[in-house]
């Protein structure tokens, strides 16, 4: 019975099919919102599904001079990372299906796997656009990762634990966005950086380097990378909503809060001009990290004073 339950968790909910479907739906909502903000009609509801179906049925071309094993393995790992992370976050407002002390750090690591895989995939192919894209992706990874981690530590410090389920139970009903606004903003913007969303899409800037690290990917590999991005979007939103917006008590709250965040992200995406990679790095190290540290110091002093 236990094996069956484990299988269900991995294959249907919260991992597996559920994540794929909700990822595609959120991708559609994101695309539609941006389109409406830009005064376009936008895609129909099944467009992401159709895109993925098309990509999966297409021939996958492995370019010469690449390591074939890595070329095919990296997209799978890139999708597996966020899929695994789904087990540790309160997906759909339910309790995380798996939990242990320190799973917050593991989740953040699993979310970084996507960027790492993108970087390696770019470095693996000999294409010049891919190489530049990979360099940029990894540069960007090093700039937002530390502030993002520091931002998510805030709620953990308040709860006094590194376990996501414990943090949520302890902070149930606490809207930490009010007390830790800086962390919240950095977490949201860090999530956009992680997902290479619009102002931070220098690694895949199409007017400069075509499609960045994924230029040589077609067919299944590209589909896996894309789905991985969508899944990571949902998990990132869930994590931020759970930690900062007073927890996710039930599926309705989950939908309201994550979609609210998605709306905010879409606004930012539609408003911004793409930042150059040096501007992105400058933004994160000059302001992001400093502010995140500041917030953390305030938190630590405050919690010491209170106790």
């Amino acid at each position, binding site marked *: 019975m236990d094996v069956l339950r484990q299988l269900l968790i991995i294959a249907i909910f919260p991992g597996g099919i559920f994540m794929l479907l909700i990822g595609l739906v959120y991708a559609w909502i994101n695309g539609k919102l941006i389109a409406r903000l830009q005064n376009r009609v936008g895609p129909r509801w099944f467009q992401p599904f159709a895109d993925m179906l098309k990509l999966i049925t297409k021939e996958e071309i492995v370019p010469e001079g690449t390591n074939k094993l890595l070329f095919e393995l990296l997209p799978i790992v890139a999708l597996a990372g966020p899929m695994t992370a789904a087990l540790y976050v309160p997906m759909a407002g339910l309790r995380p299906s798996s939990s242990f002390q320190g799973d917050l750090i593991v989740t953040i690591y699993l979310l970084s796997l996507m960027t790492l895989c993108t970087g390696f995939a770019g470095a693996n192919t000999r294409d010049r656009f891919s190489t530049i894209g990979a360099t940029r992706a990894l540069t960007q990874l090093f700039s937002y990762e530390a502030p993002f981690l520091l931002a998510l530590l805030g709620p953990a410090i308040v709860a006094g634990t590194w376990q996501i389920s414990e943090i949520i139970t302890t902070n149930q009903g606490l809207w930490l966005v009010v007390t830790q606004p800086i962390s919240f903003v950095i977490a949201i913007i860090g999530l956009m950086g992680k997902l290479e969303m619009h102002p931070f899409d220098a690694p895949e800037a199409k*007017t400069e380097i075509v499609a960045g690290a994924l230029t040589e990917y077609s067919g299944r590999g590209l589909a896996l990378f894309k789905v991985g991005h969508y899944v990571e979007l949902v998990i990132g939103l869930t994590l931020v909503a759970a930690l900062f917006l007073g927890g996710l008590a039930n599926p309705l709250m989950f939908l309201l809060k994550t979609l609210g965040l998605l709306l905010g992200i879409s606004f930012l995406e539609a408003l911004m001009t793409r930042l150059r990679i040096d501007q992105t790095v400058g933004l994160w190290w000059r302001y992001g990290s400093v502010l995140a540290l500041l917030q953390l110091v305030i938190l630590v002093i405050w919690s010491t004073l209170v106790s």
Partner: protein
Amino acid sequence: MAEISSDNGRKFTIPIGPQHPALKEPGHFEFVVDGEVIQEASVKLGYAHRGIEKIVEDRNYTQAMYILERVCGICSHVHASALAMGAEQLAGVEAPPRARAIRTLVYELERIHSHLLWLGVAAHEAGFEALFMYSWRDRETIMDILEEISGSRVHYSVNAIGGVRIDISAESAQNILKAVDFLEERSKHYLNVVSSDRVFLQRSRGIGVMSPEEGNRWGVVGPVARASGIKRDVRVDAPYAAYDIFPVTMITASEGDLEARFTVRVRELLESTRLVREVVKNLPEGELTTKVKRKIPPAETVVRIEAPRGELMYYMKSNGTDQPERIHGRTPTIPNMASVLHLTIGHQLADAPMILAGIDPCFSCNDRAVVLKSQSHSDLWSWDQLRQYGIDRYHGRT
């Protein structure tokens, strides 16, 4: 090139083109980068050469006008009217005042749609998709107006040899006035966006700075020159059509960076809306065409027109028949292209597409064959020789 393949391996060449998402037309740029910084730049043009100058030698003037209109898909009116004005000069006649005013009106309408198109493309290069979508939406207003007055959105074919083919009805005049009112309001908004959006200014202020001296040395024309403080505008310097009756205020800026190129073009939008309004309200009455003899006596002439991208020059020679002896055009992209290669050096790779878009390049317009050293004894090539040259070049390519 030895440096590129040196052992440190840090420098390599990024090709932009012939097919690349940053280019809307084929052209080939090679940027040698060290990390993200551009060290060298080179360009290869000619991917969209169509032999138009040769084609028009086998057509009569009216046919040639329709062919030349197809030189550019954005500023089609300037090319067609250049031929019409050239033919009129060669024949020694002048188009009636109403025709000249209508030509001027269409020049300015075309400038509005070209600058709005450019604004969208340049914003797209910077990754500012919202501005791209909004400016192209507003551009539809002007496309609808052009369709209403001429029947076509792109190749309006307004000209005839000796005048214009269309008239502006009272109803159209009202619609034009309504459209420019709307566009003026939008242009003011865009001026505000390109000069105050801080994220956007990070990508445009101080990027690709060109001093007036450099601009003069490279011979830049049009809004690119005016953004560097060079007072150069054919509409002011040598008024043609009805620009002597409806004078233009020259828009210049002194900064010479990308921001200045944005603000100059958007302020030209405002100036064009003013001019359109003035022309529509004071349209002279009278005939639309003058009679021009089919056969034009031998003569030579040069026509200069301020196209949306800068000075457009046509050299025309007639030979007493109804077909031109020789027509040669120089489009504004050619003189401006040199500035791109110089300005990108030292900038980030991410700035290169924006600097390129800053001159509003039109590759198909500027691609024409130039024989620097004659390979045969004659400087004049026949169709067969040209064709054979093309075939040999194709087979001999590496």
